[in-house]
């Protein structure tokens, strides 16, 4: 069983509580049969080594608002009024299709042995989009909401 006591020794009493908290979360997830990346719990994954391709849209055009509802890190953020996403959605669908092609193209095709997620039943763009909407997640690179622009374009100091 993994335990938070396995975290590296932090010799800074100011930072230590924060580091402990950050390390505790993934330990909790792993010990609760939740994987921090990907929609399928450990128990439902293939009992073998496998290849994963994550398609990450790191600069979406969509805009929305983020609301923190609780100090409990397992209570999801509320994301509201996300708009302007047509191009983003098409990029996500295209990314899933590209991942499939990568695994069926040399040299990766030499080790390709079948698809687990999303699965062969999802073929059309609409079917892939539907699957993506049920599993899509943040890649957890939150860095802030400040606009990084010159002041005359609405940026902040």
């Amino acid at each position: 069983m993994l335990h938070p006591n396995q975290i590296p020794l932090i010799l800074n009493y100011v930072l230590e509580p924060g580091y402990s908290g950050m390390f505790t979360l993934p330990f909790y997830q792993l010990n609760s049969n939740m994987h921090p990346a990907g929609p399928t719990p450990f128990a439902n994954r293939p009992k073998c080594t496998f290849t994963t391709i994550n398609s990450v849209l790191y600069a979406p055009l969509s805009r929305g608002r983020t609301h923190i509802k609780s100090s409990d890190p397992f209570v999801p953020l509320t994301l509201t009024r996300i708009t302007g996403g047509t191009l983003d959605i098409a990029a996500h669908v295209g990314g899933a299709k590209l991942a499939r092609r990568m695994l069926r193209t040399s040299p990766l095709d030499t080790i390709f042995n079948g698809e687990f997620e999303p699965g062969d039943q999802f073929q059309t763009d609409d079917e892939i989009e539907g699957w993506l909407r049920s599993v899509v997640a943040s890649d957890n690179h939150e860095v802030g909401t400040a606009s990084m622009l010159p002041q005359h374009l609405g940026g902040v100091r």
Partner: protein
Amino acid sequence: MGEGFPSAAPRSRGIAAPRDVFGANQLKSLISQARATIQQTATEWANGNPNLQKGLVLTISRALDLYEKGKQLPLEMNLGNDHAPSKSDPAYS
């Protein structure tokens, strides 16, 4: 596979090229739709700040320019090995 380029993350295969992700006509249409709504989007998300409104128009326009040039797309394809450990796996001990 198209252009793109390798990224720094050790798991990563690289950044996707637009032509690997979109059909030519599909991308042209999507960019056209996005350009038609830039002002509306900027107004909606500027919180009444006219400078930020200008900034949003500029940043979205520049992003669409990059899509249009077809050189790169902000889509990272991360390739990695994974496995589903059992409770007897050393990772759990």
